[in-house]
């Protein structure tokens, strides 16, 4: 027995240990998913498995910003004419892009993938709905929507994040609410009695049109830029990482519409690390250096411009860029 165990130990190689542990983890993970499916089949609602602190720290340790900037550099390389059609056709096929809607359908027109990614649409491709006061600012998939309760917003069903962490402290207007009715952060945002706070989250997939427009008639008074991680915001990751949108780089535009407070926040991701706001030339996102947890404010209201930036429903507002 001693000889047998000795020969076994010498034959055991690191790769065997890796395969063994990896296989064990996958088996354990598959068994967990099997159990969830069984529970769902019996009509029992299964809470999403949210990553623990160690898993989040591990994921955040991946240099996503560096990867994102490298990905952006790569996509700025001008492609030779003969390579453009095959590269963009592969992208179109992979992500199901509908080039018939693009303002320029000729693939040779786009010098690199970055330009292709920023393509505009034919004006008639997206008619703006006139009968509703709020329209979708972009193409995408509705991750979640509804009323904001207890200052928590659901990123996907069952996984929430703090609205105050996401928007930052309410300092963009000098609210003169008395101490007693200052209440929660949510009460600070609601300016009119009887109103409620609502939210809607739209996920843009890689093949989607990546410009965004004004969702209603409103005046943009303030911009708050949070440098941050650039983790994937894929719905599967949004189900796994709580407070995901509070970790990622984002730009919060806030102001007023006919019913009071209104905000639009563009959240970056690994492959789409940069955010442009057309009327804000000073905004720089996905810079190499930033202080964790910091944000910088900018007001569009000045002594000469009391209104801020007036945006009409459907007007071009900004775009996401690769890298």
């Amino acid at each position: 027995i001693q000889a047998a165990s000795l020969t076994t130990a010498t034959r055991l190689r690191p790769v065997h240990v890796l395969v063994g542990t990896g296989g064990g983890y996958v088996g354990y993970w598959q068994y967990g998913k099997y159990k969830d499916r069984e529970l769902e089949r019996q009509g029992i609602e299964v809470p999403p498995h949210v990553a623990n602190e160690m898993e989040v720290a591990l994921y955040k340790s991946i240099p996503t910003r560096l990867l994102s900037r490298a990905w952006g550099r790569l996509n700025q390389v001008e492609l030779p004419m003969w390579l453009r059609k095959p590269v963009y056709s592969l992208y179109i096929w992979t992500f199901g892009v509908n080039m018939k809607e693009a303002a320029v359908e000729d693939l040779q027109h786009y010098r690199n993938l970055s330009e292709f990614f920023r393509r505009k649409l034919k004006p008639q491709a997206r008619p703006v709905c006139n009968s509703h006061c709020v329209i979708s600012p972009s193409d995408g998939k509705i991750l979640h929507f509804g009323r904001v309760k207890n200052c928590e917003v659901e990123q996907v069903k069952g996984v929430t994040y703090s609205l105050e962490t996401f928007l930052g402290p309410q300092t963009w207007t000098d609210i003169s609410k008395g101490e007693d009715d200052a209440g929660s952060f949510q009460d600070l945002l609601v300016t009119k009695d009887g109103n409620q706070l609502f939210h809607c989250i739209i996920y843009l997939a890689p093949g989607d049109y990546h410009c965004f427009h004004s969702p209603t008639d409103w005046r943009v008074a303030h911009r708050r830029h949070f440098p941050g991680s650039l983790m994937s915001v894929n719905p599967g990751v949004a189900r796994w990482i709580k407070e995901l949108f509070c970790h990622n780089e984002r730009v919060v535009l806030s102001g007023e519409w006919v019913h009071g407070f209104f905000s639009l926040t563009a959240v970056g991701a690994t492959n789409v690390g940069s955010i442009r706001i057309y009327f804000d030339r000073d905004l720089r996102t996905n810079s190499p250096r930033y202080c964790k947890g910091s944000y910088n404010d900018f007001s569009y209201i000045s002594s000469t411009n009391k209104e801020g930036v007036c945006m009409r429903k459907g007007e071009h507002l900004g775009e996401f860029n690769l890298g």
Partner: protein
Amino acid sequence: STIVLVFEAPKDFTFNLKAGQKIRFGEALGTM
């Protein structure tokens, strides 16, 4: 990438959406 709208509106504001649905720029999100 993701876009998050947070806004105040009267109580009777309603979304005409379903979670998980595809949506395109310009389509209605909701109304009073």
